[in-house]
């Protein structure tokens, strides 16, 4: 196909090579405590998902970092005993349980910090519900977060498959939502070419999302 080529990823996600292995094999490798590379890939893969979900629950940047740190420490402790079984349940449900618990912990600590700083006249926010009630309806939001996470994973894969200028036109026009005229001037391509790149990459993304779902046993 014209314009399609294997390209090296040169961005921040340089080591984001989870797509070279299946998600299932990554989870299996995570159980090998000496396999540091698997853990690095796992951290890279789930960092954004966990941080974004913590943000969506109202965590600050520092709290989100704490949630990520504590979730990864918990996984370090738990993974040697984890047995991946597609039939029994999805890994993401298991992960939600860990992350939810850590978000509750982060808010408990945050409330203490506020209590330390508050004067007598200040109101300390208190939750009306228990932590269990609070997290009980998070599944739908986690599912939404998970879909976005898959999409970003698919985007990383597609980026590696197309020529840099094609991805750049998609990044500028679709992801950054810059005017077509600005993109044509910057990349010296026609407007029609930009639209073609957009169509092609969206199609590739949709295919990649389906492929990833198949890999992780969600289809």
């Amino acid at each position, binding site marked *: 196909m014209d314009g399609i080529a294997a390209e090296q990823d040169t961005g*921040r996600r340089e080591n984001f090579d989870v797509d070279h292995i299946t998600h299932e094999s990554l989870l299996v490798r995570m159980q090998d*405590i*000496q396999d*540091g590379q698997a*853990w*690095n890939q796992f*951290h*890279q893969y789930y*960092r*954004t998902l966990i*941080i*974004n979900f913590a*943000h969506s629950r109202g965590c600050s*940047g520092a709290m*989100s*970092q*704490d949630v*990520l*740190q*504590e979730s*990864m*420490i*918990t996984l*370090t*402790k*738990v993974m*040697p*005993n*984890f*047995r991946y079984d597609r039939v029994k349940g999805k890994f993401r449900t*298991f992960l939600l349980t860990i992350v939810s618990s850590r978000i509750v*912990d*982060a808010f*408990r*600590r945050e409330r*203490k*910090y506020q209590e*330390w700083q508050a004067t007598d006249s200040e109101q300390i926010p208190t939750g009306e519900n228990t932590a269990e009630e609070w997290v009980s309806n998070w599944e739908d939001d986690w599912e939404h977060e998970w*879909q*976005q*996470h898959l*999409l*970003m994973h698919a*985007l990383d894969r597609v980026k590696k498959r197309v020529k840099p200028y094609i991805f750049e036109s998609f990044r500028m026009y*679709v*992801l950054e*939502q810059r005017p077509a005229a600005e993109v044509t001037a910057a990349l010296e391509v026609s407007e029609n070419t930009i639209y073609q790149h*957009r*169509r092609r990459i*969206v199609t590739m*993304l*949709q295919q990649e999302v389906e492929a990833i779902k198949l890999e992780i046993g969600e289809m």
Partner: protein
Amino acid sequence: MSNDFEQLLVTAYRRTRASDQLEDNSRRLRKTRQLLLNHPPPPEPGAYVLVVQGEASPYWLSLHNGATVGRSDDAAIKVTGKWVSGVHCRFEADGTDWVVVDQDSTNGLQVNDHPRARHILSEGDAIQVGSCLLIFLQVRKNETTVD
């Protein structure tokens, strides 16, 4: 072409870019993980610090309320070095949480590479006192059991 699909994509992209702006603590976490794997925590539930100091083999210390770190002979964790005060910092239990408090030390307390006067500990926090590194961990009942 699905506008909903593109909208979801743009939202995900923006949020991912925002999270990428956060400090990347993966290197510190990787080091912590390796320490925990090489020196597994005790099985009994409780709060612990892994004490990593000089050439000595790292060891786990069960925390008790008021445990101190410093050059003093009375310190629960005795640390030598000119950057360390007699009583440098102290651990305090606060409900289910543990807090590390700087004891007016000359050179201050660092948690996760940031200066802190008083810090509620999260699992995996790295406390630096002079050349001594303390990794905080809590062991909970049945925590490593996976249903």
